[in-house]
C-alpha cells in the first residue's frame, strides 16, 4: 500500500455571499483507511463533501483526489470516487435495478454481472425490481451504497450513511466497510455527528466545527486522550448513603451525587484506585466501578463548543 494520501485538501475555503462556510481546511486522507468527518449539525461536513465531488465550487484552495485536481481534472478524478451526498435520492419511478443500470451506463466497464454482484452485496435481491418509491428509508440507503460501489471506486464518500439503517444494517455496513478497506484497499470517508458511531467505524477522524478543522487524530489517540482526562464514573456501592457522604468529603473527588444506577463520581482517572481503596477501608462494599461512556461525548462536545450551531 502506497503512502501517498488518496485525498489532499489544501487551504480549502468556501464562501457563499458574505459568510465563510468552510474556512481554510488542510488535511490528508491516507489510503486504505476509514476516515471520519465528525462535527455537530452545520459544521460543514456536507459542504466539504460537496466540494470533494465537484457539486460545489471551491472558493479558494484545492482538492486533489488520486493525484487529480477535482476542478481541472474532474472527469479523471471523479472516476475513482463513489459517493452518497446527504440522502441518496433515486429515480422513484424506476425500479432499483434500473436505477443501477442508469449509473452503470455512466462509467465504462460496469457490466451486468457487476450490477448483480453489488445487489447481493447490499442484500436487495428480493426487492430490486420494485419501484424505488415503494422502498423504505433503509432500503434506499442500501441502494445508495450499491450505486456508490458499482464502478469499484478507490474512494468511497458516504455522508451520514447510517441514517435510516437499523442496528443490524449499521453493523453490516460497518463490517462491510472494514472488509472493503482490508481486502480491496479502498479508502472510505464517512461523516457523522455521532462520536460513538465514529469510534466503532473509523481509523481516523477529522473534527470540524463551524467550518474550521479542530483536529485530525487516529481514533485510538482520540479515545485515549479522552480517557486521560477527568471522567465520570458510576459506582455501585453499599451502603450507598454512607459511600456518598465519604466521597463528598474526599479532596480528590470533584463531584459526587446519587443517580438511579448508583453513585456518580467525577474525578481524574489516576485518582480512582485511591478513592476506591479509601471507600473499602470504610467497609463499604463496591460491586462495580465503571467509566461513563457519556464522558467521551462530553469530551467531543467540549472540543466542538458544546454542540452549539453556527
Amino acid at each position: 500500500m502506497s503512502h501517498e494520501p488518496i485525498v489532499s485538501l489544501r487551504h480549502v475555503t468556501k464562501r457563499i455571499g458574505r459568510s465563510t462556510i468552510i474556512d481554510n481546511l488542510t488535511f490528508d486522507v491516507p489510503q486504505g483507511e476509514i476516515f471520519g468527518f465528525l462535527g455537530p449539525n452545520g459544521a460543514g461536513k456536507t459542504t466539504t463533501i460537496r466540494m470533494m465531488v465537484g457539486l460545489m465550487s471551491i472558493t479558494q484552495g484545492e482538492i486533489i483526489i488520486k493525484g487529480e485536481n477535482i476542478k481541472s481534472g474532474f472527469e479523471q478524478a471523479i472516476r475513482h470516487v463513489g459517493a452518497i451526498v446527504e440522502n441518496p435520492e433515486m429515480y422513484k419511478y424506476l425500479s432499483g435495478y434500473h436505477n443501477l443500470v442508469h449509473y452503470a451506463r455512466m462509467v465504462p466497464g460496469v457490466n451486468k454481472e457487476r450490477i448483480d454482484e453489488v445487489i447481493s452485496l447490499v442484500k436487495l435481491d428480493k426487492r430490486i425490481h420494485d419501484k424505488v418509491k415503494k422502498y423504505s428509508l433503509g432500503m434506499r440507503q442500501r441502494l445508495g451504497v450499491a450505486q456508490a460501489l458499482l464502478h469499484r471506486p478507490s474512494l468511497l464518500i458516504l455522508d451520514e450513511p447510517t441514517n435510516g439503517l437499523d442496528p443490524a444494517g449499521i453493523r453490516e455496513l460497518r463490517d462491510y466497510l472494514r472488509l472493503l478497506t482490508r481486502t480491496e484497499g479502498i479508502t472510505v470517508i464517512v461523516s457523522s455527528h455521532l462520536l460513538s458511531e465514529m469510534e466503532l467505524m473509523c481509523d481516523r477522524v477529522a473534527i470540524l466545527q463551524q467550518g474550521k478543522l479542530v483536529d485530525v487524530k487516529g481514533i485510538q489517540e482520540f479515545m485515549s486522550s479522552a480517557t486521560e482526562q477527568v471522567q465520570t464514573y458510576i459506582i455501585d456501592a453499599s451502603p450507598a448513603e454512607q459511600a456518598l457522604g465519604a466521597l463528598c468529603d474526599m479532596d480528590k473527588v470533584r463531584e459526587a451525587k446519587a443517580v438511579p444506577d448508583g453513585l456518580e463520581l467525577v474525578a481524574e482517572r489516576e485518582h480512582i484506585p485511591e478513592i476506591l481503596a479509601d471507600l473499602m477501608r470504610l467497609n463499604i462494599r463496591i460491586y462495580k466501578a465503571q467509566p461513563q461512556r457519556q464522558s467521551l461525548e462530553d469530551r467531543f462536545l467540549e472540543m466542538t463548543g458544546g454542540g452549539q450551531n453556527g
Partner: protein
Amino acid sequence: MGSLILNENMKLYRRPRTWAMLGFMVAIVLFLSIMDWYHNDKRTEGDEWRNVVIEEKQQRSEILNDPKLNEENRSYNEQRVAILDYHLEHDIRPEEGTMWDAINGTAGLTILITLFTVIVAGDSLAGEFSGGTIKLLLIRPASRLKILVSKYISMLMFGILLLLILFIVSILFNGLIYRFGNIDLPLVMVNTEGEIVERNMVATLWKTYLFNGVSTIMFVTMAFMISSAFRSSAMAIGFSIFALFAGTIVSEVLQAYEWSKFILFSNLDLTQYLTGRPYQEGMTLTFSAVVLSAYFILFNLVSWLVFTKRDVAA
C-alpha cells in the same frame, strides 16, 4: 454520449406519464379524423365534387360583386376562385372528401407536440433538481455539458417521435376510412408569386410539420433555460406554456412598433412566409432565420453557463 442519451430515454419512457401523452396524441388524431369524416359533405366524396366546386365558385363571385368589399377579402376571394377554376380545368379534385382533408387538418396538432415536449423538457432538467437526483447524476465521469446535451437530444427525439405518430396514425387511419383513394392527389395552391401551382401533398405536409418544429425547438430551448436557471419544473413548464399562448398576443399588440419584428414570437411562425403574409412588411425568411438563431444561441448559452457553473446545493 450514446449511453447518456439511452439513460435519458429510459427515464422518459419508463414513466406512465410519457405513455399517456403518446396515447393521447393517437386518440386525438383518431377523434379529429372521425369528426372530420362525419361532418363531411358526402357529395364531395364521389364524382359530384364538380358541383360542390361550382357552387363555391358562384358564392365567391357574388361576394366579389359587392363594391364595399375590402381589399384583403377581395384578394382572398379572387385567389379562391382562381384555385377553383384550376381544379375544374385540370380535372383535379380538391382535398375535401378525400383522406387528405383530415390529414392536413391534424397538422394543426403540432402545437400539442410543442406543449408535450415542453412539459417533458421542463421536467427533465428541473425534475432532477427537485427530486435531488441531480447529485448522483453529476458525480460521474460525464461533464455537465454532456449531460445537458444528452437531455436536449432526448427531448428532440421525443418531439420527432410525436411527429411521426401524428403523421403515421393520421395517414393510416384516414387512408383506411377512404380506402386510400386519391392517395396521389396533388395540392393546388397559390405560391408567393401569386401563381397557381401543383405541389406534392406529403412534401407540403412535412414542410408544415418542420416549420412548426422550429417553434417547438425554440420553446424546448426556452424551457431548458428556465429549468437550469430556476431549477423548478413548475416554473419552467408554466412559463413556457404561458409564452406559447401569450407570445402571439404580445407580438400582435406590439405590431405597430417597428422593433417588434425582433421579438422572438414575431418570428416563430415561419408559415407566414409560405402564405406570403409576413408579420411586418419587408420581413423575409432569412431575417427570421437570423433572429431565431440569435435567440437559440442566447438561450443555450444561458442554460449552459448556469448549469455548468452554479453550485448544486440543496
